[in-house]
C-alpha cells in the first residue's frame, strides 16, 4: 500500500486533503498502467483523471480499505477499456489527430540522442499497439497487466473477480493471437529492428 488505511478512510468521509494524498501517491502507477494499456501518450493524462474522478465519486462504496489497490486497478482497467472502445469508434478521426500529434512531437524534440530515444520508444509503442490490435480491448488490457505490468494471477484474480483457471485460458488465447500477429508482422518487417 502506498498510503495508510487511515488516509483512505479519511478520503472516504470527504476529506479533500486525504483524497489529494491518495491521488499523489497513486497517480504515477495509474499513469503507467494506462500508458501501457492504451499506448497513446497524448491521452494518458485525460484517462488517468477519469480514473480519479470515478474514484472520488465511488470511494464511499469501498467497504474495506484493504481491497483498495485491486479496486483502483479495476477502475483503471475499466477506464482504459472505455477509452479503447471509444477509440475504435473514432478510428478515422484519430488517424488524422495522430499524424498531427506526431508532427508536433517531432517538432518539439530537440537534440539527436533525445530524438533517437523518443523515436525508438514511439516505435516500440506503435509496434505493441499494432500487435495488440489482434485481440479484444478487454484481453489487451489483461495481457498488458500480466506481461508488462507483471501482475501475478492471484492479483489479477482479485481485480477481475474471475477464477485463476479462466484467467489462464484467456491469457493463453490472447497471447497466442498476439504471437500469430507477431509472426505475420515479422515476415514483413522485424519489430526488433524498428528502433
Amino acid at each position, binding site marked *: 500500500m502506498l498510503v495508510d488505511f487511515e488516509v483512505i478512510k479519511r478520503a472516504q468521509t470527504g476529506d479533500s486533503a486525504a483524497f*489529494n494524498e491518495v*491521488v*499523489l501517491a497513486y*497517480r*504515477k502507477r495509474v*499513469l*503507467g498502467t494506462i*500508458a*501501457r494499456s492504451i499506448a497513446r*501518450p497524448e491521452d*494518458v*493524462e485525460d484517462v*488517468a*483523471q477519469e480514473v*480519479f*474522478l470515478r474514484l*472520488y*465519486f465511488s470511494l464511499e462504496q469501498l467497504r474495506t480499505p484493504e481491497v483498495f489497490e485491486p479496486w483502483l486497478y479495476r477502475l483503471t482497467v475499466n477506464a482504459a477499456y472505455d477509452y479503447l472502445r471509444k477509440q475504435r469508434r473514432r478510428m478515422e478521426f484519430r488517424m488524422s489527430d495522430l499524424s498531427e500529434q506526431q508532427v508536433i512531437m517531432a517538432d518539439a524534440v530537440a537534440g539527436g540522442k533525445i530524438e533517437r530515444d523518443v523515436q525508438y*520508444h514511439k516505435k*516500440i*509503442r506503435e*509496434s*505493441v499497439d499494432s*500487435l495488440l490490435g489482434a485481440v479484444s480491448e478487454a484481453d489487451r488490457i489483461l495481457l498488458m497487466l500480466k*506481461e*508488462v*505490468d*507483471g501482475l501475478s494471477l492471484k492479483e489479477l484474480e482479485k481485480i477481475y473477480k474471475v477464477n485463476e483457471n479462466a484467467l489462464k485460458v484467456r491469457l493463453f488465447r490472447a497471447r497466442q493471437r*498476439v*504471437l500469430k500477429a*507477431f*509472426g505475420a508482422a*515479422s515476415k514483413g518487417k*522485424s*519489430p*526488433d529492428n524498428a*528502433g
Partner: protein
Amino acid sequence: MRGSDEERLDALFRAFRDCPTPEPSVNFMPTLWARIESRQRFSFSFRRMAGAFVTAALALSVALGIYLAIPQSNQAYYSQTYIEATANSNLNTADIVGPVLSDLSDPGR
C-alpha cells in the same frame, strides 16, 4: 521458429515496459479538481431538478385528489331506474316485435 517468436515477443514486451511513463503535468491536480467540481455541480442541479419535479407531481396529485373529492354542483342526478328510463324513451316508438299468434291451422299465414 515458434520459440524464437516467443522470445522476441517477450523482448518486445520488456522494451515496452522500459518505455518511460508519462509524467503528470503541473495541471494534473487543478484539472482533476475542476472536473470533480463540474460533475458535482451537474449532479447537484440534476438533483434539484428532480426534487422540483417530484414536488410538482405531489402538488398536482393532491390538487387532483381534492378536486375529485368535492361533490360537483352541476352533476346530473337521475331519479328513475334504468328500466323506467328505457321504457320512457321507447314510448313513442312502434313495437318492433308484434303479438305472437297461436293459431297454427293456416300455414300460409
